[in-house]
């Protein structure tokens, strides 16, 4: 795998391969010295044009567990704030001798442009591009679902028939986009729930079902059975003043996983959130802190998934395939 830009090019076998490799990586964490020498001498650059402390730390920790050297670039206070563009920043970092670039960028497609433009030779891992994709998030979500459902018997399995409700701001969510396709590839069934204003025009072409009624989804729409997973998406504060919905109170009433709704869920329904959470808005503390919440597992598993991805783009030495 040359780059990881999108989940769209991953076949079922590719995806299961990454999840299985992440199982191996997770096992490393339980050792006395939780490190592998796999990427010794290789350099990973974290290029964060947009702030994301948790994703950056997760990639950093993944690279370090594989013994890679890590350099980190964040836009704030850097040359980018002085007007430097993607091309110059990438070339500057590449000139320092990096083998992989992990990039978060505010523009959709930025990772694709970086990989295709011929400006640099390094492998590119998309750590979130605008409102397009966040492939490692979807992989860690899939890993978490599989692990929670199958435990030690996870290897080699897909998400056969799992019912996943993704709730909230789908329009602006790269997490929702990556999950919609990856979960489908892995055999899960995805239902998106959002006010009509926050479902993209054109969502009819996605491999999902959609609705606007959270209660109906929790009661089993469209599957005729309650969801196995309820994934709540973050509502960004800037959406609150642009008429996507009247106000926070109405949003929380209609689309929040409040205590009452949470109480209706069966004991084995997983509650997920990509973080950071707005408690009291899209998710109640009762749900976030419950035994059904796997939010912290998502964080833990994120490191394993990112170790697997970095290993695949760097460690195997294989520059033979581009997982689009």
């Amino acid at each position, binding site marked *: 795998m040359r780059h990881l830009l999108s989940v769209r090019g991953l076949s079922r076998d590719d995806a299961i391969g990454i999840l299985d490799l992440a199982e191996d990586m997770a096992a490393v964490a339980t050792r006395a010295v939780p490190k592998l020498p796999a990427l010794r001498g290789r350099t990973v650059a974290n290029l964060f044009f947009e702030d994301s402390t948790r994703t950056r730390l997760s990639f950093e920790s993944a690279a370090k567990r594989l013994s890679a050297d890590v350099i980190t670039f964040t836009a704030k206070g850097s040359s980018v704030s002085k007007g430097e*563009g*993607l*091309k110059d920043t990438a070339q500057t970092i590449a000139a320092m001798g990096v083998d992989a670039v992990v990039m978060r*960028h*505010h*523009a*959709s*497609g*930025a990772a*694709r*442009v970086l990989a*295709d*433009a011929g400006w640099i030779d390094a492998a590119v891992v998309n750590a979130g*591009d*605008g*409102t*397009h*994709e966040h492939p490692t998030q979807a992989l860690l979500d899939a890993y978490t679902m599989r692990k929670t459902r199958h435990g030690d018997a996870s290897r080699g399995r897909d998400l056969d028939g799992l019912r996943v409700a993704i709730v909230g701001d789908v329009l602006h969510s*790269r997490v929702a*986009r990556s999950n919609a396709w990856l979960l489908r590839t892995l055999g899960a069934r995805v239902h998106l729930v959002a006010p009509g204003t926050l479902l*993209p*025009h*054109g*969502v*009819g*072409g*996605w491999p999902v079902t959609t609705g606007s009624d959270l209660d109906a989804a929790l009661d089993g729409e469209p599957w005729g059975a309650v969801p196995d997973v309820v994934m709540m998406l973050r509502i960004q504060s800037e959406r609150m003043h642009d008429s996507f919905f009247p106000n926070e109170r109405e949003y929380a009433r209609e689309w929040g996983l409040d205590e009452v709704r949470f109480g209706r869920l069966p004991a084995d329904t997983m509650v997920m959130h990509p973080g950071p959470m707005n408690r009291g808005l899209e998710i109640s503390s009762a749900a976030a802190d419950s035994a059904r919440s796997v939010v912290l597992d998502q964080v833990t598993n994120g490191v394993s998934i990112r170790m697997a991805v970095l290993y695949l783009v760097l460690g195997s030495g294989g520059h033979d395939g581009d997982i689009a």
Partner: protein
Amino acid sequence: MSGFTITGATLPDGTRREIHIDGGVYVDAAPPGATRIGADGLQALPGLVDLHTHLREPGFEQSETVLTGTQAAAAGGFTAVHAMANTFPVQDTAGVVEQVASLGAQHGYATVRPVGAVTVGLAGERLAEIGAMARSRAAVRVFSDDGKCVADALLMRRALEYVAGFDGVVAQHAQEPRLTEGAQMNEGELSSELGLAGWPGVAEEAIIARDVLLAEQAGARLHVCHVSTAGSVEVLRWAKGRGIAVTAEVTPHHLLLTEQLAASYDARYKVNPPLRAQEDVDAVRAALADGTIDIVATDHAPHPVESKEAAWAEASFGMVGLESALSVVQAAMVDTGLLGWADVARVLSAVPAAIGRLTGYEAPFALGSPAHLTLVDPAARRAFATSDLHGRSVNSPYLGVELPGRVVATMHGGVPTVLDGILRPEEEVAR
């Protein structure tokens, strides 16, 4: 060189006869010492007229100048261009439009007809000095805030009423601004997948619908720039059926390319209005064929390399189009059987000239008419390359694409600007 005899060319009406030129006009016999131009197998067309060109001068000379833009025009078979107002300073006063027109006249490659801004600074707040521009030496007849929509309904009404008094036309860039905030590409399934903010067709259609009704009420002429959706075609068809004085243009790229190209995130395909879906392409082709859309106009929009070498959302909108326009029209309309060459002459010369009130194009090839013409080899095929571009910018979506047709010669008022497919040197063309 002043006298020419062109032999063997086929005229737009399909006939073949010798064409004689002397003193810049068509004459009935070979003038003494005439230069002979053999044109066997070539299609003669009247000099092409572009109603929608960005020449970028003054202000953005790193992208294009009047000289380089008119050289690009000549290379594409054009003998007249209408230079859009979004220069810096903006073409909103008599002084600026006269400067642009005189630069064009001095260089000689094409007649430059400046477009005047509708509003001061294109700011959409108050009318520019339309009368002064109309009465200036540039004799402006087309007024447009192109790049920006005259979104305020009252201001648009006033502009239509006021411009009508100078025999002018308001050329509207139809884009409802609130519906297109941050918009990056055609809104639809693909934009939802790519995570690029959508530019919905209704943002164009709603403005056209409003404007045709305002034009009807004002009894004024309205021209709609770069029509891009099937819905817009329906509105125009309805308006023309009512007898409203509306004309409309389509760009070559909206006749040929679709939004699918955006999936590469290659910003060469970023343009405003955006590339649309195949059904829109089919609709604008049919509309051009049946006359609902009157003309083809290039929206030639040069940008420097650095403004396209960027993430999609950070790149500029626009494509250069003068050099490729005729080839694209041939590919989309002629080779598909939708238009004949006489129709091409109509949509790329006679009608755009009439909309712009540009004289000299009413009776092409007729004795005494100015010798504005282009000779095209319709049988040629070429992979379009940067060597085909003669402007200062290379932001063409057709690089590497095989296109039919090639401009072999262009004459502007009897002066060759292109011969044997080669642009003639500045000093030979300059007046």
